[in-house]
């Protein structure tokens, strides 16, 4: 197992960042849909907050792609 893990190469950090960001955006979307269902009057505000937060989470992936040094 360890020897298999040791052979992993490539841009693993980008994959991990994308995984985390995907989970994060998924949770944001889930909660935004729930919140809209609970309080339809606030749909506009919830949409704005969800877009902003999704953009902030998404930014992490681009840090991983462009700023972190891959092998």
């Amino acid at each position: 197992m360890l020897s298999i893990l040791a052979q992993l190469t490539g841009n693993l950090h980008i994959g991990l960042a994308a995984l985390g960001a995907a989970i994060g955006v998924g949770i944001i979307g889930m909660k935004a849909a729930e919140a809209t269902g609970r309080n339809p009057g606030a749909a506009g505000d919830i949409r704005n907050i969800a877009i902003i937060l999704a953009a902030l989470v998404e930014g992490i992936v681009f840090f991983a792609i462009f700023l972190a040094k891959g092998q």
Partner: protein
Amino acid sequence: MIALLHRRSTSTAGNAARIFALVFVFVFVTSGQAFAGGEGGGLPPDAPVLFNIGPLPVNNSMVVTWIVAAVVIIGVQRAMRRKQEVPLGGQNFVEWLVDGLHGFLSQIMGRDLAKNTFWFFGTIFLFILATNWAALLPGVGTIGFSSQEVEGSRVFTHHVEKPLFRGANADLNMTSAMAVTFFFWWVIWALKSNGPVGFFKHIFAPKGKSEGVMKVMMIVIFAIVGVLEVVSILFRPVSLSFRLYGNVYAGETMLESMQGLVPWLGWLIPVPFYFMELLVGLVQALVFMLLTSVFTLLICEHHEEHRHDEHGDDHGHGGEKKADAH
């Protein structure tokens, strides 16, 4: 699409001059050297230089920036040439766009702040939207110069190394120019609404009330938090520019690789992704505008606290009443 772009634009008469000036500033700020780097295959991260005007190298994303800016400016000028009491056609479209944007921004930022800063956020949204969608036009990124031989079996995947046009936001120079311009104006707006001391206090001073030993602790804690705040503020232009660049660049690369995925289906497979890129272009323009306006709101809020609260309360009550009714 071109006809659409002609009308996709800005402004009521009052804001028009400032918006055009800003577009010109963007255009000239982006005239820098291409971002260094390069790999084989796919879209190169740096925009290739087409020709030189004196000491100024002109690359293909700059050409697209100029064309889009010119189309936006001329389109708005043409639409607003004969103003009528009851708007029709182009004038109606431009007024609907600007009015809608203004309403949206004043809902987020409060009426006064939105009124003072609309020229910037309106421009940024429309310009990013126009450049993102212009990058999807047929011919952008596909017409140009190549040193490769045409391979017979892969007619549609022949790679153009030096396209005449390139999506302007797929160039880091463009996006960082916009982010840095925003940062510059953010500092000015912050200083205007808080004053130099208030600006400093807004970042470092403790919030809320506390007494005695707690007060001393709070001052220390908030000073440390202020340092973190400064780091996050300085990182904002970086994250703004990388977010837009990354999204558009990834979209271009994806379209290109989808074209090469199955050689004889190269004309069909990218089509759904084109629709996705239309959506991404709109969402990224919205995200850039929303994030920059929220950053501005966070630093300027201080001053207009009750006025903003009034608007906020109105919405809040409306929402709660509706929820109660259910």
